[in-house]
């Protein structure tokens, strides 16, 4: 009996580790996303020198980040409460939420495909991507203190 209890609790532990913490996971992906966009934005604004290969690597990293953003896994029912700034609207309008994320991924892919050759071209791509950030945060995030 004792062994059974231990076995069950170990299973439960393993399961919770596998599910991890969707709130923490999505926040980590968002942090990474912001950092990459931040670096690209500095180049687009001529605050840092333009290096086409480095820029492309960063854009590809942004795409990898976006592709990892599995909404079903990261925003399961029940993850609207807790230490999160996700707006309840996400779960009320899941289709709309997914649509803005899809548009973001499409714009990131387009930027990778375009492989910007100078800071001006990058600026256009970063502008489109930045506008997607705003559109999503406008409706689907609530600022908390």
């Amino acid at each position, binding site marked *: 009996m004792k062994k059974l209890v231990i076995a069950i609790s170990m299973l439960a532990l393993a399961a919770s580790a596998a599910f991890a913490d969707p709130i923490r996971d999505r926040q980590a992906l968002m942090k990474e996303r*912001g950092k990459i966009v931040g670096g690209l934005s500095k180049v687009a604004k001529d605050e840092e020198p333009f290096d086409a290969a480095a820029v492309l690597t960063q854009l590809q990293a942004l795409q990898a980040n976006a592709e990892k953003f599995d909404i079903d896994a990261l925003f399961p029912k029940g993850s609207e*409460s807790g230490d999160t700034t996700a707006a309840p609207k996400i779960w009320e309008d899941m289709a709309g939420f997914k649509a803005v994320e899809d548009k973001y991924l499409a714009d990131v892919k387009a930027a990778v495909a375009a492989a910007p050759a100078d800071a001006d071209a990058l600026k256009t791509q970063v502008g489109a991507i*930045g506008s997607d950030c*705003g559109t999503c945060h*406008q409706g689907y995030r*609530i*600022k908390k203190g």
Partner: protein
Amino acid sequence: MPWLKKLVGVALILGVAGAAAGWLLSAPVKLDAATLAQLGPGDAARGKRIFYAGGCSSCHAKPGAQGDARLQLVGGLELKTPFGTFVPPNISQDPKDGIGAWSVADLANAMLKGVSPTGEHFYPAFPYGSYARMKPSDVADLYAFLKTLPAVSGKAPDNSLAFPFNIRRGIGLWKRLYLSDQPVIPLPDGTPEPVMAGRYLVEGPGHCGECHTPRDFAGGTRKGQWLAGAVAAEGGGVVPNITSGEGGIGNWSASDIANYLETGFTPDFDSAGGAMVDVQRNMAELTADDRAAIAAYLKAIPPHPNGYPARKKSTK
């Protein structure tokens, strides 16, 4: 019991006198002739700047409209607040459903005094509490620019407010308490020009304090916590502290602020969210000088700790 009769009589007289005084004190007051004389001819090109500084389309464009559709000022957004639901009206050039038939004096009375052409109070959800600080000539410029925008038919639904906020006349008393054309933050002589220009943009047309300053029980902004951040009037959540006080943006440089207003990115590359998204997109239409002025003013104002309660950290 003759004394009771007397008491009732006195109470009645006091009640009637009080009601009469309240009625007089709550009367809508329009602009005087001297102010109207300062309107001038108005210039649409200059008015475009005022339009974006004032963020007219944030509330008056059709909800969700993007691009040029944001210039169709048909109204209809629902602002769900503790006072009830406010619905910004159609302010397009349609003469029947919008404000196409308004004179420039009508617009000035609306923006600077919160009074409609028919002499009724507007609710201060329309931020004339800030617009009251605007120069009449800027209102005339805005009028000229609005004239260049399309007429769109269709009336937005009425406000739906709870008692006693549904009594429009009561706003007259609110105005006596809170409506002023004077600056919020006094600046001494010799203050650098960008700070002065920023004060005008922030306190006047930009109406930043309407969301970023906490309000008292009667819905007036608490000037002692100017721009300290506040519980959001709608949608839950908070509006950030934009002073240099604790929890605010003291660690942002002036150019960080200007860059945020231009691009929507914070120094650590988070992005603007909520209602600020539209505001930022409007700010991006201003000149770099205007954005720098706003930044200079925000760096110059008194720092305050957050004007909203600390977040309860979840134990989860």
